[in-house]
């Protein structure tokens, strides 16, 4: 029992040591800012994780550097610029609007507009097609007969 407790305690301290950089644990405001920012940044090593989620070495290093910059009083914009200077817009989950990305931003709206235009044209064409083929006299008489037969009460 005692041995188990000792092992448990030992492993607990091991875990505490594995947690990274207690440096700014004292500064929850900075830590919160870091995490908010890191959520919008891509980890380059495991590309489908954000810098906040990733435990890759590089992500830890980058978080530490961002932490230092927050401490040095740099703004979020400055820090993001610092990162894009090194790793390109790729690190930003929210790519900036510029000539190479406008299609990316406008694309969905263009597709929507295209879809609406296609729908509009189809509907108009269909209506025109229906309007162009009125019933002939014989057809109308037959339709009326059918409707009348339907309306009369079914034989009991």
């Amino acid at each position, binding site marked *: 029992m005692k041995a188990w407790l000792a092992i448990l305690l030992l492993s607990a301290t091991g875990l505490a040591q594995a947690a990274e950089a207690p440096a700014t644990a004292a500064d929850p405001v900075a830590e919160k800012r870091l995490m908010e920012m890191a959520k919008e940044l891509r980890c380059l090593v495991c590309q489908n994780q954000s810098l906040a989620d990733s435990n890759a070495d590089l992500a830890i290093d980058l978080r530490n550097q961002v932490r230092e910059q927050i401490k040095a009083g740099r703004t979020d914009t400055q820090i993001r610029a610092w990162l894009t200077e090194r790793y390109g*817009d790729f690190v930003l989950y929210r790519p900036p609007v510029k000539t190479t990305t406008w299609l990316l931003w406008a694309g969905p709206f263009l597709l929507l507009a295209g879809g609406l235009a296609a729908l509009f044209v189809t509907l108009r064409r269909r209506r025109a097609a229906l309007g162009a083929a009125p019933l002939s006299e014989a057809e109308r008489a037959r339709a009326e007969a059918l409707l009348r037969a339907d309306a009369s009460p079914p034989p009991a």
Partner: protein
Amino acid sequence: MTRFLIPLALFIVLVVFLAIGLNLNPREVPSPLIDKPAPAFELTRLDDPVRSLKAEDLRGQVWLLNVWASWCVACLQEHPVLLAFSKSSPVPIYGLNYKDQRDAAFAWLGKHGNPYTASLVDTDGRVGIDYGVYGVPETFLIDRQGTIRFKHIGPVTEDVLKREIVPMIEKLRS
């Protein structure tokens, strides 16, 4: 008949886009540092911790910077290529020993051979970050003015060397 042509055309366009997208390597993130000045550094040499080297010291010559580490598996893969190239290379190859331990790095070079004019020690990986390193090995080609002209991510192969690096070196040296 024509009513099926439009969806078919759209489908083909989609397939082409997907085919291109699937054939791109998502690991190869274009570096924003191409045609930008190589970030400054001052690092100690692996072979002589007392001496340090600055990026400016290498101004005036074309040089290669190869980021490596003894823990990096892919580095071993490119190592023979670099080693062979270093024997005939018209330009010096500097190594950036990225987040490594000195004795491990030494042992690695002793065991596999040393293609580097000098290796610079970047223990905390800060210079690596300045160079936008995210996957070792990476190789940079820097011109006489100290501008990064080319970057290769991943192991350098004979093919990359012959097709991209050597022609670029020749162009930069002429």
